[in-house]
């Protein structure tokens, strides 16, 4: 008998990728290989990928073509920084305390997600951040992408018991950069700890960016994930938060500004496994031209997780007739003493408000810009870090002047 071997889309993609130079245990390699070997790219039939098609990944050419980034790279002047250039940790930076970039062997974290497994096999940088004290130190990771490359960072963020920390994940791509960014981030928030992550995805217009965050929260902890997809051809974020301890607070905020033919997909899951917790999610964005946006927010409240307050909201404004939004909030509640709400809206800017502002002398453009800023302002107000907030304000302004 002759076995018919069909090539999967992953097989084709892998011919373009360079296996990781990092040391992986045999067990982890075997596991990751098995997952990728038995998978193919998700299709419409896969519920979680219904509206997002990644086939374009196989059209990318990692030719190393270089183009500089014309805009300021850094968001925070007050933070310690680690630079990752085209997927590689910049030299001479491995000595920063609390930041680990060299490994005897890659940590054993993994999931059954095929892109996570792919990230293991082709990892370009593994970085661990540790927060040990209550000083709320800020660390900015600057991912500078100037060549068309495969960028596979694997991040481990540990906020230990009672510690406080802020992380800025700053992805910056040259204007037309065509990279494949594939990031897995494992986050552990210890008891009484408080961690905030601000993720800015300002990718080149041809870049695919697939990211996953796996978060575990211990009792009495606070975790905030702020996600800002600003540009890129396709951006997909999977945020999964397990709230494992009592009295936790969880905040998820997102703001996006889409134009051209860009596609953005935010999938979030917060899993309330235990009682007495609070979670609040607010994602808002504007969609222009032929851009498409997908939002899927799941809130689970497990059987014994009483006294949970969980709020979720997604609001979209279409700035063109050709933009598309698919928004699906999902609540699954198995406990009876809970307070949950969710809502999703998609609309246009208020014509009456535009007319009112124009009648006072504002141009149509200035009027729309003011209204969009006001709309997204509700999310920006949630951003505690001033430097991140003012960066985002400037980006929104720029989005309209372009």
């Amino acid at each position, binding site marked *: 008998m002759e076995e018919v071997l069909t090539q999967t889309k992953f097989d084709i993609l892998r011919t373009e990728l360079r296996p990781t130079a990092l040391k992986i245990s045999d067990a982890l390699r075997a596991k990751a290989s098995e997952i990728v070997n038995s998978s193919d790219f998700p299709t419409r039939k896969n519920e979680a990928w219904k509206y997002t098609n990644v086939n374009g990944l196989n059209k990318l050419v990692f030719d190393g073509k270089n183009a500089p980034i014309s805009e300021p790279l850094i968001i925070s002047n007050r933070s310690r920084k680690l630079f990752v250039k085209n997927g590689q940790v910049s030299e001479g930076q491995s000595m920063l305390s609390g930041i680990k970039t060299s490994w005897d062997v890659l940590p054993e974290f993994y999931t059954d997600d095929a892109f996570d497994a792919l990230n293991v096999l082709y990892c370009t940088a593994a970085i661990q951040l540790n927060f040990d004290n209550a000083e709320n130190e800020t660390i900015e990771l600057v991912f500078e992408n100037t060549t068309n490359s495969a960028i596979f960072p694997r991040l481990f963020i540990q906020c230990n018991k009672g510690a406080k920390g802020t992380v800025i994940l700053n992805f910056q791509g040259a204007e037309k950069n065509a990279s494949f960014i594939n990031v897995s981030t494992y986050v552990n928030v210890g008891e009484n700890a408080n961690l905030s992550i601000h993720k800015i995805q300002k990718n080149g217009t041809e870049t695919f960016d697939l990211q996953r965050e796996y978060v575990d929260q211990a009792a009495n902890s606070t975790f905030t994930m702020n996600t800002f997809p600003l540009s890129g051809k396709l951006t997909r974020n999977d945020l999964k938060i397990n709230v494992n301890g009592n009295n936790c607070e969880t905040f998820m905020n997102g703001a996006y500004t889409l134009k051209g033919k860009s596609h953005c997909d935010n999938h979030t899951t917060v899993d309330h496994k235990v009682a007495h917790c609070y979670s609040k999610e607010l994602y808002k964005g504007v969609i222009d031209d032929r851009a498409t946006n997908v939002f899927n927010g799941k809130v689970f409240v497990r059987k014994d997780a009483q006294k949970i307050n969980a709020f979720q909201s997604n609001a979209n404004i279409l700035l063109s007739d050709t933009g598309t939004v698919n928004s699906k909030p999902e609540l699954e509640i198995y406990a009876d003493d809970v307070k949950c709400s969710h809502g999703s809206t998609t609309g246009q800017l208020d014509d009456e*408000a535009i007319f009112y502002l*124009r*009648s*006072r*002398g*504002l141009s149509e453009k200035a009027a729309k810009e*003011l209204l969009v800023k006001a709309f997204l302002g509700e999310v920006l107000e949630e951003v505690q870090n001033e430097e991140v907030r003012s960066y985002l304000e400037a980006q929104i302004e720029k989005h309209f002047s372009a």
Partner: protein
Amino acid sequence: MIEIKNLHANIEGKEILKGLTLTVNAGEVHAIMGPNGAGKSTLASILAGREEYEITKGEVTFEGADLLELSTEERAHLGLFLAFQYPVEIPGVSNVNFLRTAINETRDAKGEDPISAKEFMAMVREKSKIVELDSKLASRSVNEGFSGGEKKRNEIFQMAMLNPKLAVLDETDSGLDIDALRIVAKGVNTLKSADNASIVITHYQRLLDYIVPDFVHVLHDGKIVKTGNKDLALELEEKGYDWIKEETQVG
């Protein structure tokens, strides 16, 4: 200042203005009165450039320009101001911030430098006093959560900030108690000069006790059917609009 000639306008295929003619000169206050549905707000909206209306005939000259050819914001830059009958609430947009943008865009259109922060804040303080508008309200989101009276006072505050050549006040008095009415009227009177003019649209005579008009026009069925001095307003108050309607039909 403004010359409206034989203006005809439709909305959704229905003719609302049917040959309206009106001239307003600098230094004058004109009152336009008329029953509900006469077309008063339609006139105000068309002057401000609302796009839903189809102008089928007539012309409007404002400060020497063909008004109907200009965008809403260009009209504002030339000095036209509309106080809305129903001011719009705009959550998240600060009143003073947007006014500053408005002033600067107008200055820019005239080739002038932007207003300094200091000068602007001094102006906010001075002008909000005229309409007794709490400076906290002045800096809140545009009209959000304002009472009816506060909204109307905010319109006059904005007018004071923008210092227009021609102000069109569309039923700024409706829904106001006597105190608010007095404040609004005081604002309008304070801003009056030999170089500017106003068109005061109202349904009732009572506003005209405070803002004394040079001319009173009756708008009925899309046309100005009668013009007189302030006594005409009193006559209308006494007799209602029916005699006008009858007179027009006979005529």
